[in-house]
């Protein structure tokens, strides 16, 4: 780790001000990606602006037809939240399988969506549920937010404040873990609301999380059987020593069917 300055912000405005004033400033929102990278000297921010003291950024609330989660809410709180479990139980389950207990106690939803790791779980939920990412400046639809590997629509000085998840009729998440890292090798999140279904895939896209629109269109009825004839092309799918594109593409189909079955309360 290289030397850096550490500032614990007390308000979102102060954090935004610091972020725009200080060159090489980075936000600390749990740090489960940033800190290991800094320890390996692969990242060297001059200033770390810690958001953990900004109390407005933490909390979970039901607001009308949506569950709104503050950016600094750790995964563990989402996993065990009575509000989330009542409204979108599958979202609580998704949060409960992120990383390990240490990660779930420190890692936050804001950190996760802002980092947009291509194997992170939350971006899939955001896309499948049609979430809105609310920043200190504006509201951005999830479809417009995740723009590429570790890339988002966030502009300089923009900070994720909360994520608003419309409550679906049904949601299911199925993840096949990378055997080594236990990140999603392939994770598929399926959500149904009214007559529409959305399918989001994480861990597999060579450009990060994406919607599998062919699958969405294939749902004649919302059940796994509707997806059986569908195959995912390996083109545009990521390959590495753990899983080549062909295997990952195959797993996307399997996980999509399993996620759908889970949404229906079945096991596949």
């Amino acid at each position, binding site marked *: *780790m290289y030397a850096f300055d550490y500032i614990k912000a007390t308000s979102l405005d102060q954090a935004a001000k610091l972020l725009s004033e200080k060159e090489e400033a980075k936000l600390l929102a749990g740090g489960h990606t940033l800190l290991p990278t800094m320890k*390996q*000297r692969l990242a060297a921010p001059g200033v770390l602006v810690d958001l953990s003291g900004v109390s407005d950024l933490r909390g979970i609330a039901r607001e009308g037809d949506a569950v709104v989660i503050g950016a600094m809410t750790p995964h563990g709180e989402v996993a065990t939240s009575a509000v989330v479990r009542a409204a979108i139980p599958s979202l609580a389950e998704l949060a409960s399988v992120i990383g390990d207990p240490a990660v779930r106690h420190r890692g936050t939803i804001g950190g996760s969506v802002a980092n947009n790791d291509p194997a992170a779980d939350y971006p899939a939920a955001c896309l499948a549920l049609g979430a809105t990412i609310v920043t200190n400046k504006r509201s951005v639809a999830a479809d417009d937010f995740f723009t590429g590997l570790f890339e988002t629509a966030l502009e300089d000085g923009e900070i994720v404040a909360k994520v608003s998840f419309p409550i679906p009729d049904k949601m299911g998440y199925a993840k*096949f873990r990378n*055997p*080594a*890292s236990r990140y999603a090798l392939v994770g598929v999140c399926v959500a149904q609301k009214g007559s529409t279904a959305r399918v989001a895939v994480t861990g597999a896209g060579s450009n990060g999380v994406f919607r599998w629109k062919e699958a969405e269109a294939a749902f004649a009825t919302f059940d796994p059987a509707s997806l059986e004839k569908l195959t995912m092309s390996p083109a545009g799918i990521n390959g590495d*020593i*753990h*899983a*080549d594109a062909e*295997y990952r593409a*195959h*797993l996307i189909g*399997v996980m999509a069917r399993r996620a759908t079955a889970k949404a229906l309360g079945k096991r596949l």
Partner: protein
Amino acid sequence: MSATGIGARVVRKEDHRFITGKGRYVDDINRPGQSHAYFVRSPHAHATIKSVDASEALKKPGVLAVFTGADIAADKIGGLICGWMIHSKDGSPMKAGAHPALAQGKARYVGDHVAVVIAETLAQARDGAEAVVVDYEELPPLPDMTLATAKGAAAIHAEAPDNIVYNWHLGDKAATDAAFAKAKHVTKLDIVNNRLVPNAMEPRAAIGEYDDGDGVFTLYTTSQNPHVARLVLSAFIGIAPENKLRVIAPDVGGGFGSKIFIYAEETICVWAAKKVGRPVKWTADRTEEFLAVAHGRDHLTHAELALDGDNRILGMRVSTKANLGAYLSTFASSVPTYLYAPLLSGQYNIPSIYCEVDGVYTTTAPVDAYRGAGRPEATYVVERLIEVAARERRMDPTAFREMNFVRQFPHQTPVIMMYDAGNYPLALKTAMDMHDVKTFAQRRSESERRGKLRGLGYSAYIEACGIAPSAAVGSLGAGVGLWESAEVRVNPIGTVEVLTGSHAHGQGHETTFAQVVADRLGIPIENVSIVHGDTDKVQMGMGTYGSRSGAVGISAIVKALDKVVAKGKKVASHVLEASEGDIEFKDGQFQVKGTDKKAGFGDIALQAYIAHKFNGQELEPGLKEGAFYDPTNFTFPAGVHICELEIDPSTGATEIKKWTAVDDFGNVINPMIVEGQVHGGIAQGVGQALAEQAVYDKSGQLLTASYMDYCMPRADDLPSFEIGMITTPAPSNPLGLKGCGEAGAIAAPPAVINAITDALGHEDIAMPATPQAVWRACQKRPSRLAAE
């Protein structure tokens, strides 16, 4: 059996210290004035080092010194050694290149130590290392054996122009060829034994220190054998004479072989301590461990088994290429030769065996002994061949094993070893009963109903432990004897310190060794302390590896205890006023035969020290005895493991449902600790079979340099093991001990792969059988019905 004696499940004495954070590991030690070392490592797999410019680094705050290979050479510090001479078929000695502690002229793998920066703090040393400018001229990377042995490949060492270190062989080629000529059936297999990275929980670490007052060096190091480290650092590397070099290996958090070897980093720390006049500390980070610890396995093998018309084995032919990495590590040469081929007879009566091994240099981290060391590789060859042969001959694999088992002892194999005891059919039958093999078909049907593939795999392994009779290994090229030493110091009030040449790094010696002493002397186990790991305290010893601490280390203690009792009898004869021949020692009492005259062990110890009851010229005062024990044979632990697993063909995920192990370790001192060793060994073997693999890319970069990519087995990958034991005591060992430390890691890989191939219905899968590999294998049509 007493509550703490031999055979008792005594709770580990050392665990209070370990689980309450009071263990004292090298990194816990800080010396006054200590500085920190950080190594500049080669980013290239193979490169000429044209220059090293440290001028900017030396200007950095806190940097005390930067050393390179030139400084090592100027001080006439010798290279790291390989202590086992292997000769090729033509009688020529192996072609070993030099292994300088800091590279001289060339870097030969990614992570090779090129320079060291010593600074006030670790961060400053790292800053300094980043400022060292090394001018490399890249040479062709040769990260695998195919590339390294291709025609015209660049020589990694000038000494081995074709990158072949040796072409070694063992066995009778003519007799084996003749056996194959008359065979009715030949089973052939191509086998990959995947490359592993040992992952001790504690990474390697060292602190070197030099006392200018008396000219003594001290090295704190994560070693499995501090005396061997001192011997090598003194006699070969030339740090200091042995009497001026103290090596301390305190609590060590796991080794699995990787801490046997003498590495560049500790050599540099102890050497540099004098250069900078300050203690020098280095602790590997996990990435450095992945890059530069000695790796394990990495064989490519073609193997054949010849059968007669009745399916009896006639012969075995094995041809192996063994990746030795970029330099020969301390015992690297012996692992794929004498620790490998002599185990190819397995538990079977095989009249002829011929094995050829090419040792190959590649531009990868050195490869050396890792839990099992050669024996897992041999067992994998044997048990895959046996299983496949049985399947090809449409025989039940257990019936095929049964009819080919060795049943008469002693049994001389065609590959050096003479098995002295065992009961292979009993282990198999016991394991099958415990596992409830009879009802496997029902479990398989039940899996099929759920769309899963279920398989059952056997592994009937043997290993050679109790290494080793010194003259025997000497005749095979070992540079050292493999005896062990002990000293038993009885204090005047009858408490006992045992100084052992063995070294514990997780095995529980403080408990098991004390159990033997308490049992033998009839004293409370609390009165026994085990001292190890410090060359200033303990007499020369050979250390811990190859499951030898029980069979060899304890045997030395027993030998010394016998001397203590004999001396005690002499003292007792004076105290009890009887002739020495009439004194019996039992349950902690010296007693005059046929009388009630007796004295306790502690009383006799006191009398030995106050020396009032005997003439000090005729009988020496004191009660302290030492012994060196040199085994007369190897010991041969053996057993049968059965793995039952289920494959999800839609994802390739494999779940081990049931594991039964029946081992014959001879007599057992502490069954709880032995079971722990079996558990850990199986976990490592399952890791090799399903998960672990070191992968270098074409440019020689290690792709699996962290736990993000190097997959370790986890608790949730493993079932609750069913452990059973049978006992045939080792005839050559005073306590009938054989050794248990590596058995699980040796037995497990073929059990897993035999189960997977049973489930798949074909043999086309290599280790590690990752989900991707298994899924791909599931796409291939079975070559036989799984239920056959």
